[in-house]
């Protein structure tokens, strides 16, 4: 009986505890209200987190948007300049007699014709070498302060260079036995004090195209233009041969180079030569 009475009292207590008017139930109601507020706050924090992620992605995407295209457009301009320059070099005229100008020369020829004639004599460009160098550096003047470049004529059949000219802006030139064996260029000078760097025209005699490719592979991004021409070779019996040749103009931002395999000497612009009349 006593046990039954105690059980009944416990059940009443439980029922009362769960009843509407007991203080625990009221507290539970307040907790639900507070939990609702916490849920909304948590939702908004999640929303903030997601939006922050999206905003960060959008920001970095916007900041880097078009950089590749911008570089492509700049490279396109350099390529078009190289093409224009190469065509202009190949179209240009030259006086036949040293010391004359195009305006007063008695005899004028295409520069390319003079080059071919010079090469046909002894398979070496000697008389037109300086004129060609002057023409190339003159045509490249607008880019000359900010870029290095090379112009070469290569004969694939005989695997030799008829002509190779470097225009190099450097801070230091390494020389040995009258040959320029290398050039160094400090990064801090790039585009800032280029006017203070030494610029040189180098006439080179590389042995193989592989050496040239190896050198150009190390100079960074290049803009280049190629053209095919035919040189003239006269055999001992007087028979003429017309070996194909590749003319190339490649330009790149100034950088250090190892010119040891290029067999380069400095061209002196003060003493231009001219093809023989």
């Amino acid at each position: 009986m006593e046990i039954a009475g105690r059980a009944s009292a416990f059940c009443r207590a439980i029922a009362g505890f769960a009843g509407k008017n007991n203080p625990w139930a009221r507290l539970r109601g307040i907790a639900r209200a507070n939990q609702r507020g916490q849920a909304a706050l948590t939702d908004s924090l999640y929303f903030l987190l997601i939006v922050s992620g999206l905003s960060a992605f959008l920001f970095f995407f916007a900041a880097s948007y078009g950089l590749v295209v911008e570089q492509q457009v700049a490279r396109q301009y350099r390529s078009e300049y190289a093409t224009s320059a190469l065509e202009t070099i190949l179209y240009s005229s030259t006086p036949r007699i040293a010391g004359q100008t195009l305006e007063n020369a008695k005899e004028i020829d295409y520069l390319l014709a003079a080059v071919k004639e010079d090469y046909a004599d002894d398979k070496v460009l000697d008389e037109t070498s300086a004129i060609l160098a002057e023409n190339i550096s003159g045509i490249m003047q607008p880019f000359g302060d900010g870029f290095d470049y090379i112009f070469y004529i290569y004969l694939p059949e005989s695997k030799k260079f008829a002509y190779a000219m470097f225009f190099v802006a450097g801070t230091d030139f390494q020389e040995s036995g009258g040959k320029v064996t290398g050039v160094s260029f400090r990064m801090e000078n790039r585009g800032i004090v280029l006017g203070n760097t030494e610029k040189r025209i180098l006439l080179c005699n590389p042995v193989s195209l592989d050496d040239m490719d190896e050198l150009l592979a190390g100079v960074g991004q290049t803009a280049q233009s190629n053209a095919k021409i035919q040189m003239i070779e006269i055999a001992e019996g007087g028979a003429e041969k017309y070996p194909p040749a590749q003319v190339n103009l490649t330009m790149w931002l100034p950088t250090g180079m190892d010119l040891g395999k290029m067999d380069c000497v400095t061209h002196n612009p003060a003493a231009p030569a001219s093809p023989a009349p």
Partner: protein
Amino acid sequence: MSIAENGFLGPIGDDLPSLIPLLFALVMFFYIFTFSWNVFDKRNSAFGDALTILDLSGKIRGDNYLTGFGQFAERCFEAKTVKRVSFLAGLLPLKTGPGQDFKGIDVETMRPDFFSSAAGKFECTNTDSPPDVANTSLIVRFFPIAMEFKDEARNMFYVKPMLLVVAAWK
């Protein structure tokens, strides 16, 4: 004691703290969105202008060989079909011998002394007003071009390198 008396402020008031990060997130998002939109718009416009000036230069250059003023005028007429930008183009002599003296052009004044022949001045533009270099973005491009000169007295012609200067602005 009612629930309201225990901190319940009503449907809006109860969520007031959550509105702060919500509004902050929305403001941040739309700010970044507007910034990105402006960047896209500006860069797309710059690409368009850079490509337009290459196209424009290509029309004047043609095959990089000019036979004379007549052909320059023809190409200039074609270049004027480009309406996206205002431009000023012309030819400058390019010295190729010893003592090369190219110093660039003065973009502050944009009055290059373009080459003139008896037939006319090698200048091409689609506008009468010069660029306001202080307030506009000016794009300048150089291209070498070979030009044919006829010398009637000596009965010969020769080809000299010239420099095509193209300046464009909006």
